[in-house]
């Protein structure tokens, strides 16, 4: 498994390089003036020109690219045009917030998605199956932004149970973190739980029809042992693939959720950076997020090998 991880890591380097180049090209190709964004709607052309000069945006694009790669080679991702602070520091300050929120949302997703998917498969064509799938469809259909707003009105304004927004770091106050993160995590998770429930249900149904499950039943094994030991273990390979995708979707989905709930995570940072054409921040933060997602995918690959010996024997 170690060699699989190493091979994956080596193949990730060109990916990161390519991503950095594509990001640089895309952010500079889209029209828009960072100086105008920073200056705001009432700024005069004179003020906008002054910002452009201050931020050295009047230099040729190629010069900016060379500088960026030269800095990158020294581990320097540049300085945010908007925040005026190092990109690496700003990104690393936000990353734990998004990771904590994503993990919380992932836990909810797994709990609801796996639970309802397994239950629906075991009780196929019953009201439980119907209810679980209706719930899954609702989760997939309702935009998390809208769901978040509804939750704010219901749980904050009407019931007064949870705060409307803001963020408390887990390390400062675990209960405060739980209070501020629950609605964002649930609004993020419900969409993906629906997706996971449907995948889990169909995979489980397929596995439950296999001969080895019939054999296990014939041997007189208990229902729970059949489900957990034989059915779920074999269904986990496709489910793990989906979970890998879900982790990526959680991080990209946090863009909207963090804005709605005023959470200072990487999603909000990137949104602001793109909207304001903060070139160094977009390039640097995306590179870090890409590296994170690459690591997650390597983790998934390693997990495959752990779950399925064939992956190890085939050499990954």
């Amino acid at each position, binding site marked *: 498994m170690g060699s699989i991880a190493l091979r994956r890591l080596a193949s990730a380097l060109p990916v990161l390089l390519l991503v950095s180049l594509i990001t640089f090209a895309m952010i500079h190709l889209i029209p828009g003036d960072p100086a105008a964004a920073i200056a705001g709607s009432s700024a005069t052309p004179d003020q906008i020109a002054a*910002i452009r000069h201050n931020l050295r945006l009047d230099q040729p694009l190629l010069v900016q690219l060379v500088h960026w790669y030269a800095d990158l080679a020294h581990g320097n991702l540049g300085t945010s045009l908007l925040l005026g602070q190092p990109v690496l520091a700003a990104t690393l300050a936000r990353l734990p917030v998004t990771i904590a929120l994503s993990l919380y949302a992932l836990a909810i997703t797994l709990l609801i998605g796996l639970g309802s998917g397994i239950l629906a498969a075991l009780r196929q064509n019953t009201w439980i199956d119907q209810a679980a799938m209706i719930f899954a469809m609702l989760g997939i259909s309702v935009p998390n932004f809208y769901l978040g707003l509804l939750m704010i009105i219901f749980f904050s304004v009407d019931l007064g149970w949870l705060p409307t927004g803001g963020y408390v770091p887990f390390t400062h106050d675990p209960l405060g973190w739980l209070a501020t993160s629950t609605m964002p995590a649930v609004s993020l998770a419900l969409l993906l739980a629906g997706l996971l429930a449907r995948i889990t249900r169909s995979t489980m149904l397929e596995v439950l029809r296999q001969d080895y499950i019939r054999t296990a039943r014939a041997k007189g094994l208990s229902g729970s042992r059949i489900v957990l030991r034989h059915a779920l273990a074999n269904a986990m390979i496709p489910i793990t693939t989906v979970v890998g995708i879900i982790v990526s979707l959680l991080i990209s989905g946090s863009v909207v959720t963090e804005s709605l709930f005023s959470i200072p995570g990487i999603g909000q940072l990137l949104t602001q950076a793109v909207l304001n054409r903060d070139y160094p921040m977009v390039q640097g933060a995306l590179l870090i997020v890409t590296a994170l997602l690459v690591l997650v995918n390597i983790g998934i690959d390693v997990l495959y090998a752990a779950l399925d010996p064939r992956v190890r024997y085939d050499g990954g």
Partner: protein
Amino acid sequence: MKPVSSRRASLAPFGLAASFALAMGALTPGSAQAAPFKCPHVGGDFVFGQEANVNSLDQMTSSAISTRNIALNIFEELMTRDSNNHPILDLADSMTESPDHLTYTFKLRKGVKFQNGQKMTSADVVASFNRYKKVGLARSMLVNVDHWDAPDADTFVIHMKKAQPTFITQLSSFSVPIVIIPASEENDPPQQLKPIGTGPWQVEQFVPGSFVKLKRYAGYTPNTHFDNRTGYGGYKQACFNTVTFRIVTEPGARVAGLQTGELQGVEDVPTKSVAALKKDKNIDLLPLKNWWIQITYPNLSAPPTDNLDFRKAVQAVLNMSDIMDAASDGSYSLNVGFQYPNQPTYTDAGKSTYNLHNAALAKKYLAASGYKGQPVVLLTDKDYAPMYNAALVMQSQLQAIGINAQLKVTDWPTSIQISMHDPKAWNFFFSGWGTQPAIGPIDTMAFLAPPDAVNLPKDGKYDPALVAAWNGMNDKPTEAERQASFAAMQKIVLDKVYAIPFGSLTKVQAVRSNVKGFVPARIPRMSNVWFAN
């Protein structure tokens, strides 16, 4: 140069420095006569929901309203504006203008300390002006300044190359003010100024994208020439322990926060929520009229908007009520001018061109222009809903008289870039002018004047009549003459359709009903505001 004392002395708003100085020679506010403001209650954390992100607190290099909202509670200037928009002294104890108008001498208030505990001296003022000259966004205001110096620790002198009657007006502007910082920060790079000022609030914590927490500065020295807060200056006291500016970009979440009491104030209530909030006895709605002038301006370099008859056709057909209704969700007032009606500098010169919605007249002008149905591009954005909505309604009104109006919708940074650098790509650009009209006519009309008019005069050639009026606004020796020049320029702009103001948009601020002393303003003032219990 005999100094004269006057309680709450202030200079009139539109470049009155010269006339005032000619008459008085100096500006030296006397001591306040009434008992100064005292906080009825001290304590608490006032959480204010701000609609836009704050990226930096470097007030010298940011013209963003979101920065100003917070920074002007931290920093102070030599001069600022009072509640009537008149220039007043802030960190300066007195200002004397020489008879030849070439020297301004500022005596500094004594005992003022920065939030790092260091005493403020003229060396800090010199350093602040040095940094501003290097990186300040409105450093062009210093173009007529020859140099400055500090003859002693309490005196700062500005020496002009030539007399500039409007200099003090510009110096007291709150758009991108020359805030006074410790001399040690002179070389801080743009956007990276350490937030150490002399104001009543100091930064406790700044988490970009989330919140900025200010705490009461215990060593604050109030301006005893006043007895209460006025405008952005006066006698200021911090009554809360802390003020938290929380960034809540989603309007629905802002309203919900206000309703639950998590936020005690917000800077923008969506018009659609106003009716519901009016019924809530725990919330006080505070409409701030004249937030910005909703406006469009034509591209004078591209056909068909380079043709005066065509522009007049557009002007003649527009129904401003319909446009403003859509732009503001019904929260607006009609306004022909480039100043707000509550300002002494307001003029309705050129009003005969405004809000005509006369299709017959428009068609007459259209025929005279020789318009052949070519596309007319309305360049707008969706970042600012009022701009997009105004463009949408204007498009339908133009189409009604046979103009092939087409919307080009981008985001704000893109649209502003296109408007400045791609003269063939648009015909009308949509904007909102808020801060500049609030500061005064010069800041506003600068948008349409040389050297960088936003409406792109053809081949860079400006209308001589407009240039003459603009020069008069800047150079005439008396206030009355400068105001007359402004009125003349406004009339020219409207007659020649160099810009089309639609009206003034109202913004609604709100606080919880236990918050007292909060008066809605362009920049929320956190001083002299307190909790009732």
